[in-house]
């Protein structure tokens, strides 16, 4: 073909000229006396010549070839425009052909991109045509991307992620008794020891990843990265929202939270604790990896997209926490505050892993803010608890000298608290603790730990309050029974749980002594006088003494059988001890007076007396077996 021939000759000719020019430049460049300016001119000239080589190269290929290439690609793209089905549904060959077509359009545009402004006519026309087809293809690819992401979404089971919940502490405003049978399982920590990447799941069928990547590649190369990212982010946000609603997270405003009933709020918090863990450790970690898989090759787009995707849900979760941390700081909230604090402290490494780049520091600072506030809320509540105990005032004495509901509540409360010992110690020592990376600390259960000190202070406040309550009794004996019951209960609670580690043996010993002392005081208060009535003071007749003794005993019996010592062992011990005070004296009395024939004044044997003493402190369930009138 003559045209081709002349072009070939022209090309060769041009190449010779260019080669010669480049040679001259090289020789000139070797001159060491060149100024900076001159050297720069030479460099520019050199690159210009190189560019010319490319231009002539493409010109050599023939303009018609380029046009043909575009037409071919255009056909492929436009064919799909009138096709209602999805390209990626129609098989891998179709998909890769489409991508190839788009790539070719891009190549064509690159080729034509070297044209100067002054070029009119065919090349420019072709460039615009290519641009048009490109735009159509990009638009289509956006749709295809969306459909791929939707159709190949993967669901997965959450059952292998266990989040044991702590015991639900039932709070009753009026401090009425709480069940003593609350199981206090302190081994509830989720220390599964897993590596964080064990939680990562496939959010999209992994087989589709290459396809998505190829779409990303071609869109980025064509300068349509924004469109890709927006479509991508949009879909991922949708998916994350779906996860959140699957976790039953409601959208509560701060107003909602402040106006909600506590038991509803407590439920929401439990859901939140679970959700936070799953979202951060599973979903966001997986999402980040997914972004990295798709966009890792494109600079910082992967982390940009990840932040955009995760923003809204992270902020919502953090906002809820803020709302809860606003208070008010009623004692029953302490466990929830601690749960929330602990879950966030647990997740802080995961969070750093997800949001550690400088641009995302706002997320981390919000996170740390919330953590701090929850810690402060917990401590405030803990201190408020002690106040509440001190302020709990009674008007009437508590019936039957039994264990006061306040005692039960406080002891059960602090028993449950031992499960949070680590965290509380940390917060009590330093309200803004630096989180350790190693969570393998041992529980600081020493009686000298901050927790130990505070707990002893709390029980001390309780004791003071109980003493005030005991003064309401008119009967001094009942005062002692009441204090004996309650302190004994406290000691039992401490001995029978983790509390003993915080209170120490010294405390237990001391308080054992206390309740025993009350027992002794009781005996003295009630029985010293009664027993003294048996004594022969020389003035009172036997008949009179018997009568006085009977009446006194009868009174005591009538009243004190209705008193209650709930703990059976304690009751028995006191009965025995009382027996030991009364019976020998009575036996002696009987022995002295049996010879006088004064049996008719004495109604009971010492055995009878012993039996009756066993009726004491049985409480209201005891029906009076011996309804004798003396």
């Amino acid at each position, binding site marked *: 073909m003559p045209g081709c021939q002349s072009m070939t000759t022209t090309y060769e000719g041009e190449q010779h000229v260019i080669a010669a020019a480049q040679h001259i430049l090289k020789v000139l460049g070797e001159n060491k006396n060149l100024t900076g300016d001159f050297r720069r001119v030479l460099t520019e000239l050199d690159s210009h010549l190189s560019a010319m080589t490319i231009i002539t190269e493409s010109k050599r290929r023939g303009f018609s070839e380029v046009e043909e290439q575009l037409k071919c690609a255009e056909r492929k793209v436009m064919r799909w*425009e*009138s*096709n*209602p*089905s*999805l390209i990626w549904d129609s098989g891998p060959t179709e998909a890769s052909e489409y991508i190839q077509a788009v790539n070719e359009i891009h190549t064509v545009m690159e080729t034509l991109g070297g044209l100067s402004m002054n070029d009119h006519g065919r090349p*420019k026309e072709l*460039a*615009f045509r290519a*641009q*048009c*087809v*490109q*735009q*159509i293809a990009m*638009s289509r690819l956006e*749709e295809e991307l*969306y*459909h791929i992401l*939707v159709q190949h979404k993967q669901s997965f089971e959450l059952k292998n992620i266990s989040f044991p919940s702590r015991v639900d502490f039932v709070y009753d405003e009026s401090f009425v008794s709480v069940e003593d049978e609350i199981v206090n399982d302190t081994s509830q920590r989720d220390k599964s020891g897993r590596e964080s990447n064990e939680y990562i799941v496939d959010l999209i069928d992994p087989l589709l990843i290459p396809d998505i990547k190829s779409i990303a590649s071609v869109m980025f190369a064509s*300068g349509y990265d*924004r*469109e890709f990212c*927006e*479509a991508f*982010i*949009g*879909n991922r*946000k*949708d998916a994350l*929202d779906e996860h*959140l609603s699957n976790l039953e997270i*409601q*959208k*509560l*405003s*701060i*107003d*909602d939270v*402040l106006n909600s009933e506590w038991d509803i709020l407590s439920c929401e918090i439990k859901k939140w604790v679970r959700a936070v863990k799953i979202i951060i450790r599973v979903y966001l970690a997986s999402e980040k990896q997914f972004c990295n898989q798709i966009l890792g090759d494109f600079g910082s787009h992967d982390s940009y997209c990840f932040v955009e995707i995760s*923003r*809204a*849900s992270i*902020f*919502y979760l953090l*906002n809820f926490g*803020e*709302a809860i941390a*606003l*208070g*008010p*700081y*009623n004692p029953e909230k302490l466990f929830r505050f601690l749960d929330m604090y602990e879950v966030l402290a647990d997740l802080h490494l995961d969070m750093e892993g997800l949001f550690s780049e400088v641009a995302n520091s*706002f997320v981390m600072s*919000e996170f740390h*803010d919330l953590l701090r*506030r929850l810690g402060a809320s917990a401590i405030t509540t803990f201190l*408020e608890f002690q*106040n*509440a105990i001190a302020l709990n005032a009674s008007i009437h004495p508590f019936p039957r000298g039994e264990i006061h509901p306040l005692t039960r509540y406080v002891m059960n409360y602090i028993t449950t608290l031992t499960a949070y010992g680590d965290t509380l110690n940390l917060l009590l020592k330093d309200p803004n603790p630096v989180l350790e990376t190693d969570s393998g600390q041992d529980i600081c259960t020493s009686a000298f730990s901050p927790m130990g000190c505070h707990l002893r202070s709390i029980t001390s406040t309780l004791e003071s309050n109980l003493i005030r309550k005991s003064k309401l009794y008119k009967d001094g004996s009942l005062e002692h029974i009441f204090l004996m019951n309650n302190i004994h209960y406290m000691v039992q609670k401490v001995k029978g749980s983790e509390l003993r580690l915080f209170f120490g043996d010294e405390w237990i010993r001391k308080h054992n002594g206390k309740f025993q002392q009350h027992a002794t005081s009781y005996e003295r208060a009630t029985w010293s006088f009664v027993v003294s009535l048996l004594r022969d003071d020389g003035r009172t007749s036997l008949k009179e003494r018997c009568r006085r003794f009977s009446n006194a005993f009868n009174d005591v019996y009538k009243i004190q059988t209705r008193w209650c010592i709930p703990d059976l062992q304690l009751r028995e011990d006191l009965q025995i001890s009382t027996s030991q005070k009364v019976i020998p004296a009575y036996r002696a009395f009987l022995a002295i007076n049996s010879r006088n024939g004064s049996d008719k004044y004495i109604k009971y044997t010492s055995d009878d007396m012993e039996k009756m003493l066993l009726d004491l402190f049985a409480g209201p369930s005891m029906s009076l077996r011996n309804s004798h009138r003396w």
Partner: protein
Amino acid sequence: MPATDYQGSSASLRHSILSLRRDPVHSMDSPHSTSTLELELETFQRQVTGRLLELSSAEPDRLLSLAWIRKLLDSFLCCQEEFRVILFNHKSLVQRPPLDRFVQDYFERTVKGLDVCNAIRDGIEQIREWKKLLEIVLCALDNQRMFGEGQFRRARKALIDLSISMLDEKDSNASSVLAHRNRSFGRQQASSRDQHQRSLGHFRSLSWSVSRSWSAARQLQAIGNNLVAPRGNEVVATNGIAVAVYTMNTILLLVMWALVAAIPCQDRGLQVHFPIPRQFPWAPSVFSLHERILEESRKRDRKNASGLLRELYQMDRCARVMSDLTDWFQFPLTEEREGEVRQGVEELANVCEVLKEGLDPLERQVREVFHRIVHSRTEGLDSLGRPNHV
């Protein structure tokens, strides 16, 4: 002194405050601390008046701009801080009734502002989404040597997405979350693609922050509920601090109201009552601002705006202009047309630039307001000596 008699009580208010110096029964601690308090209160009122005056005298094209909003928030933060210091310095006075009630009431109102802050943050995010669409337009049309159909199509697609999104925002109370995309340039509606209705992520309005029942208007009503100026005897009983509390309450309401007016959020009703007694030195400024913003909302072309932020208006206008300009199929463009396009693009680029510079700092400021409210409330409630119990 009856509360409704605003005109008459102005003299008595001033008299009440001044009489404190002379009345030994009401002087707390020492006469010295009373006069310090008086000075602080006077300074506070002066500062408030000055700031509000500056804000209300903004030129028409500056009012409700990003820069102005930031100044508004800055003023709030300053006033809030000064107020906090006054309360802090005079804790013993604050703890006495009736001031303790007033202060507690103030803190409750500020808490209602927290939800507004969160909603505003989402609104800012929404504006960012729109800006991203405009950036696509710029990508297509800015710095181009020549314009071709492909670029126009690209720009147009983004502009259509933008207008649908802004419409969706206004109708956020409607059930439709899915957006029908207008396929541009007469492409046939493909049936199987229709089945997969595309809910484009950036079309959803504020998906994860507020429930459908949350209402900005209601929140504002709650903040402004029962907001009345203190009576003469209350002023005396509180050593004048009640006036500062009332002032702060008003500022809070104004700021929240202005934010809601400017930034897109759910249920943006602006009908909030602002009954301000005229004797307060800052009252004219507040009144003027209220009037001007309301007037702005009533203007024909702003009636259905998703937010009165000036940059939103500019964005909307530019987008409309570009929409018209790109609705064109004859290439190459005439020189005249090309010039118009370039000019439109330049204006758009300016708006985007302003937004790019201003949105992030604004968001940070809103967050700062949030944090300060929480912090000063915690501090304030603590110093009231309340055990923070319900």
